[in-house]
Structures are given as structure tokens and as C-alpha cells.
């Protein structure tokens, strides 16, 4: 199976004796799915769905009484959270399961396709998918988002802080307010530590939200996001807002990331293997229509190609650091892709 020079054609090399071919279109970067892994999610979701439904039915349909300080509304909120988690897992299980079972596969007659060719870069499962674009750039290239944008980080941390502190805080509250005081001290200690962890998550969430509102989103404008060795990359850092920046700097970074198993734990290790200074720290100013810092760099001839698999990654990107007085600082990684060959794609 080969692909045509553009993504509208899929070319098949059909040998004699083949009457039809079955294939599935998979988006670049989409993981290959294990049927078993996908199907595990559905049974896992059932307790999360059935238990809250049962409790809600008992309270609001059968008129059951709720004992304790929580009350029916508090319990309903808690059950609602369980239900949302359960439905999310169920949806993911069904969606992944259908895809793993070939949902969306198309049948072709042998006479409809013929070919020779090379699989395009974006169709290679181990080549990074195109960097997400966030809009037109100032200089006619493309504007790309950071690996983790300020907004997505703020939303993610806020939801996590809400769920963590909601569960842990509720349980801890009932532990310390129960009349009989039957909870062992070590259980209180464990939940106390979890509550402290929750507070640090809450701090991180508040910091992330403050970065969205006080600092604003940071973007990188680049001439192109897929480059090959020897090509010139033109780049510019754009910072929303209008305030002075004490020090702005940028580096072109190649980093390796590996995941390995130690006992039952999975450990992730990341190491920059090449760092090229693009702009040393210097004062600047945030301005939505003028770059904070900008420049050009020729991709080194011996640059390794980008590569992404489940346990091993080689990634290129521009690391931007902004030190801002009185506002949360910025340290973001903007991924670009380096291919040994990019001409023609």
C-alpha cells in the first residue's frame, strides 16, 4: 500500500490473484489501537455510570433519605461527577473500539488502483503530525501554538484541581467532622497529605489562570514548520498584551524523550541533545503586532529527523523564555518538524 503525492490518492500495488482489497484510512499520528485495550474501557465505565444512576434513582424517584451532613444536593453533585467520568470513559471505549474493529474501512476493486510510490511523511506513523496552527502570522508564514498553551494548561489544571480537591476534601471533611471519630489517625494523616498535594495543585492552577489573564498567550510565527537540514527558518515570538519584558530569549532545541519501565512504574526521561542559541536574553516589550524577538536560523546539516513513537521521541522545537516583572513568566516549547527530506511535500 502506497500513497499518492497528495493526500487525495491512495495507491495500491495489486498483485495477481487478488480480487479485492480492504483498507482503513488512519489519520497521521493516530495511534494504532488494541481491540482489547479499547474494549476494556466499556466495562470499566459501567460502575461509574450504574452506581450514580442507582443512587440518584433512590433519592429522587423513590424518595430515599440521605443521612449525614452532605444532603441530597451534595450527594447528587458527587454522583453527577461520577456519572460524567463514567460517560466519558464509555464514549472513549466505544469510539476506540469501533475504530480498532475497522469501522470506516472501505472496499476497493483491484482494477481501481495501481501503483508505485513512496509513503508521504505525514502518513508515516512514526513521524510527528503537523504542528497545530493558530492562525496567520505577521510575516506570511504560519503561527503556531506552544506545546502546552497557557489556556489549555489553565483549563487542565483547574479541572484537575477541582476533581482532586473535591474528592479528597469531601472525604477529609467527613473524617474530621464525624461524631464518633472512628477514622484511624493514619487514614487522616494520609488524606491530610493528599489535601496538601491538592492545595499545591490549586496553587499551580491559580498561577496558570493568572498567566492567561495577566501575561496572555505566547505564539511563534515561523516561515514553515516542516524543514529539512540546510533550509532557513525565519521565526518571531509574539506576546499578547502591552507591557515591558525584562528578558526575552529563544533557543532551537533537539530533545530526546524516552519512557521505560522500572518494576510497575513507567518513568519518563527527557534530555536536550542539542541546543542552539537563537537570541540571547534581552529586554523587549509585549505587543500583539510586533515581535518580542525574531531572527533566522539555518537548520544544521547533521540535524537528526523528528521521530515520535510510544516510548521514544526525537523532537525539535524553539524554546522561548520571557521574564516579566509583576506577571507570571513564560517558558514554552514550540514544536517544529525536521525531516531528512521535505522537498515535494
Amino acid at each position, binding site marked *: 500500500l502506497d500513497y*499518492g503525492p497528495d493526500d487525495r490518492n491512495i495507491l495500491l500495488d495489486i498483485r495477481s490473484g487478488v480480487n479485492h482489497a480492504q483498507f482503513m484510512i488512519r489519520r497521521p499520528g493516530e495511534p494504532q489501537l488494541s481491540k482489547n485495550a479499547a474494549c476494556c474501557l466499556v466495562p470499566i465505565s459501567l460502575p461509574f455510570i450504574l452506581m450514580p444512576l442507582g443512587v440518584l434513582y433512590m433519592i429522587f424517584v423513590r424518595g430515599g433519605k440521605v443521612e449525614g451532613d452532605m444532603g441530597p444536593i451534595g450527594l447528587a453533585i458527587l454522583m453527577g461527577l461520577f456519572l460524567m467520568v463514567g460517560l466519558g470513559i464509555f464514549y472513549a471505549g466505544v469510539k476506540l473500539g469501533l475504530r480498532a474493529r475497522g469501522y470506516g474501512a472501505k472496499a476497493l476493486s483491484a482494477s481501481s488502483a495501481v*501503483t508505485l510510490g513512496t509513503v508521504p511523511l505525514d502518513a508515516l506513523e*512514526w513521524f510527528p503530525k503537523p504542528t497545530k496552527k493558530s492562525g496567520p502570522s505577521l510575516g506570511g508564514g504560519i503561527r503556531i501554538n506552544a506545546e502546552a498553551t497557557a489556556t489549555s494548561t489553565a483549563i487542565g489544571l483547574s479541572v484537575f484541581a477541582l476533581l482532586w480537591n473535591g474528592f479528597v476534601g469531601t472525604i477529609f471533611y467527613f473524617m474530621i467532622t464525624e461524631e464518633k471519630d472512628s477514622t484511624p489517625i493514619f487514614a487522616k494523616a494520609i488524606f491530610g497529605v493528599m489535601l496538601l498535594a491538592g492545595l499545591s495543585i490549586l496553587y499551580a492552577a491559580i498561577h496558570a489562570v493568572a498567566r492567561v489573564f495577566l501575561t496572555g498567550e505566547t505564539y511563534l510565527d515561523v516561515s514553515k514548520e516542516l524543514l529539512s537540514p540546510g533550509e532557513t527558518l525565519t521565526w518571531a515570538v509574539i506576546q499578547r498584551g502591552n507591557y515591558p519584558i525584562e528578558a526575552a530569549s529563544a533557543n532551537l532545541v533537539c530533545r530526546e524523550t524516552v*519512557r521505560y519501565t522500572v518494576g510497575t512504574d513507567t518513568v519518563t526521561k527527557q534530555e536536550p541533545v542539542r541546543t542552539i542559541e537563537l537570541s540571547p536574553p534581552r529586554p523587549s516589550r509585549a505587543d500583539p503586532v510586533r515581535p518580542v524577538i525574531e531572527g533566522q536560523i539555518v537548520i544544521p546539516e547533521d540535524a537528526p529527523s523528528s521521530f515520535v*513513537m510510544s516510548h*521514544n521521541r526525537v523532537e525539535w522545537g524553539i524554546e522561548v523564555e520571557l521574564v516579566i516583572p509583576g506577571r507570571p513568566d513564560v517558558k514554552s516549547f514550540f514544536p517544529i518538524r525536521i525531516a*531528512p527530506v521535505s522537498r515535494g511535500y
Partner: protein
Amino acid sequence: MFNMQRWRQITQAGMGAGLETVTPESVTESSRMGNLDFSLRFSGDRRYRHGERFTGQVTATAREPWTVVFAEAILFLRTEGMGNRNEARAGTIELARPGRDIMRTLDAPFEFTAPLAPSTYYGTLIKLHWMVGIYVLGKGSNSQPESIELPELIPGNEGKLVRVSPF
């Protein structure tokens, strides 16, 4: 006695454990794997550019007539280093149809196109190797899977795209 389930696991999982890497020096020499003698030859010196087509020849010989259960050549990449191993197929060629009776020697060509990325890489935490794996299993003759490393995929060739007939 060959273990059919084990063989299926190996092929379905995409080159699992048990592969033996043959050093470059032994590539054109015959090697004996189980009851089959293998000989592999590659076009050139096994250093290919991205997009370049390369060919090879597999010869599998048994002492007596045998029937093909499956026979495949696979181009795949493999990581090595601190992280858990990743492997992925880039191409599969059927060397002979299952059920084909072989008098003694199966002589089959294979042809692959070197993928456009990534290049062979020796980094700090990660090494990337491109390999060609040979899997031949016959009734009456048994073998172990064998794989041979391509020393390098070299940047610098934009590949040659030929579209014969659109649909």
C-alpha cells in the same frame, strides 16, 4: 517441533523478541536457522537514501521437500537505548504463497522503498535502526526468524514518486 502460535505471535506483534541480528560481514554468507539454510543478498552495500528502492534475494533451502506456511520479508525500524523498545513495520513482501510446495530451495526476491524518515540515528538516549526481517516457516522444516540491520538510511534523496493510474 515448531510452535505455530509462537510464530503467529511474532508476526502479528510485528517482530517480537527472538530476532537474531546478523552482522554485516555475514550478510552474503549462508546461515543455518533451524532446519532451513538461509542466504540473503542485498543490492548495494545496504546503505540507502530515503526514497531509494532497494532489492534483495532470499534463498531458503531444506534437506527435503517442504510446504510454505508463510514466507515474508519485512522492512521495519527498531529503537534501542534507555526507553522501552519500539518497533514498526514500513513494508512487507510475501516471498511465497502459503501452501506452495518447494522441492528443496525457495529463491525469492524482495524490493522495498526506504521510507522518507527517520534516518538511522545514534543519539544519547535513543538509537534508531532500520532492519530487514525474514520470516520463513515451512511444514516439515522449521526455522527461526532472522533480521539484518541496514547500516544507514542517509538523508539527501527526495524520493521518486510515480503515479501510474489515479482512481
